[in-house]
């Protein structure tokens, strides 16, 4: 057959693809499978994300000892899925447990940037919140939130390990709300403060 540029076939492939595709699209729209999947899977993944909070093993000052105590027999943060990893690449939570000095400020920002999204920051103790007892010092920043967006504030000097565990609980509560939202676009106006019921 000479190629006249016309297609005389009853069913050409393009029509088939268009038809099948159209039907599939319609079917997807009608059954709303996407919506099903996103709601259900989102729900499940949100659960996974909030139940498994690996914390960067970063000990700055006093609160680091309470952080360690929270992982040990009496308090046992492992019950709640709080594990400590030494590499920022494998952690979800940056637990700032001490004053941030000018020398350490760019280091901690770098650690924060090395952590993959979604990531969360907890300011533990007065020093990390506002400079604490060292608010007058020439070398201490007024809280870690001058350089890193903070999700949860745990006051205390140092906060007891129970408070830390509760802080993780409140972070989970927040994760239900924000899900895996990137750390840059969160509602930082409404910080969560432990004990501020």
């Amino acid at each position, binding site marked *: 057959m000479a190629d006249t540029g016309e297609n005389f076939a009853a069913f050409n492939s393009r029509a088939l693809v268009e038809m099948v595709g159209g039907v599939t699209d319609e079917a997807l729209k009608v059954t709303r499978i996407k919506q099903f999947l996103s709601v259900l899977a989102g729900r499940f993944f949100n659960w996974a994300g909030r139940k498994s909070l690996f914390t*960067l*093993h*970063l*000990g*700055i*000052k*006093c609160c*680091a*000892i*309470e952080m*360690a*105590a929270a*992982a*040990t*027999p*009496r308090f046992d943060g492992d019950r709640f899925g709080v594990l400590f990893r*030494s590499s*920022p690449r494998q952690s979800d939570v940056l637990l700032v447990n*001490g*004053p941030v*000095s000018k*020398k*350490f400020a760019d*280091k901690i920002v770098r*650690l924060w940037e090395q952590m993959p999204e979604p990531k969360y920051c907890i300011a533990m103790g007065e020093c990390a919140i506002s400079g604490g*007892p*060292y608010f*007058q*010092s*020439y*070398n*201490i920043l007024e809280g870690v939130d001058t350089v890193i967006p903070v999700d949860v504030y745990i006051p205390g*000097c*140092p906060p*007891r390990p129970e408070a830390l565990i509760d802080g993780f609980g409140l972070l989970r509560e927040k994760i239900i709300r924000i899900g895996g939202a990137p750390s840059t676009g969160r509602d930082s106006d409404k910080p969560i403060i432990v004990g501020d019921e």
Partner: protein
Amino acid sequence: MAQMWITMGPQHPMTHGLWTLRVKVDGETVVDTEAELGYIHRGVEKICEARDFTQITPYCDRLCYVSAMTWANSYIYAAEDLLEAEVPARAEYIRLISAELQRLASHLMWLGAFGPDIGNLTLMTWCMRDREMFLDLLQELGGSRMHYNYPRVGGVKRDIPIGFADRMVAKVKLFEKRIEEYEMMLDESTIWLVRLQGVGYANAEEMVEAGVSGPNIRAAGVNYDARWAHPYSVYDEVDWEPAVEKPTSVKGADCYDRYRVRIEEMRQSCRMVLDAIEQIPGGKNTNYASGDEMIYTKPPNRAPEGATGFSNYECTRGASQFYIKGGGEGRGKMPYRLSIRSPMFITIPYVAKTMIGYKVADIPAIMGSFDPCIGETDR
């Protein structure tokens, strides 16, 4: 392989805090090291110039986060020197008990952090478990888990509560059994021995020359301890002997010696508090109101013009010293200059040089065995 510099820190499991060790390695062998401090420099000395003598105690608590009580006591002795305060005997006993309980807690924290350095993860939790016992006791005194703000110029904040003595004796006796448990787990493990023995030699004269003090020197076979050499408190009245290790080489003390000497020191601290609680003037089951003359003598709150105060105190990591210049017009209530001598500030650069010649894997063992604490180092 060519030599290369590795930067360990500031966030690194080996550092026990926030500092940087730069290591030059040739394959697995350490060729050169450099220590870099100052990541949590808070300027405590400057802040204390604007605090009166009672307000300084919390800052001294927070100097070292694992032995708050000893640092606060250390400051208090310097302030008493400055203010010429008298201290009742019962208060001295209570200070001794609190300091030795803190020493137990601190050494447990050290052992707990030393375990993961060598790779033994169980040790960490076991030590922290036992540490909680002593934190509870200290909490009964000071009201807080870590920073007690307990001693006062001229005495202590409040008396030991009723029943404290019994609880303390029970816990300390239990802990003496737990020490044997640790020794069973560690000293009889060949891996523990081959990791520590013959590693990180440091001899006594070299350490004194470099300014190392405390258990690290006693590990090298010399009994030198500020508790008897520059006496304070009532250490001459209670039953104890300094813990000293025999070095096994002319090269001095290795990591194993430093581990052993701290274990022995824990035993001696147990012995001390058990004896002190029996001898305490005023009885162990009485509770005087705070401010009572048995536990507190009101000091003058202004220092005389040009006065200085100095204390040499055996902290858990070595000799901590405070030097306070007081007086001055209108500033008599506050120190004009308060200077802190931290044992680890001088030890860490020395330890960094000690590592040269050993393997990369020995770095945490050597560093951990010297018990670094960066809170006091950076001040």
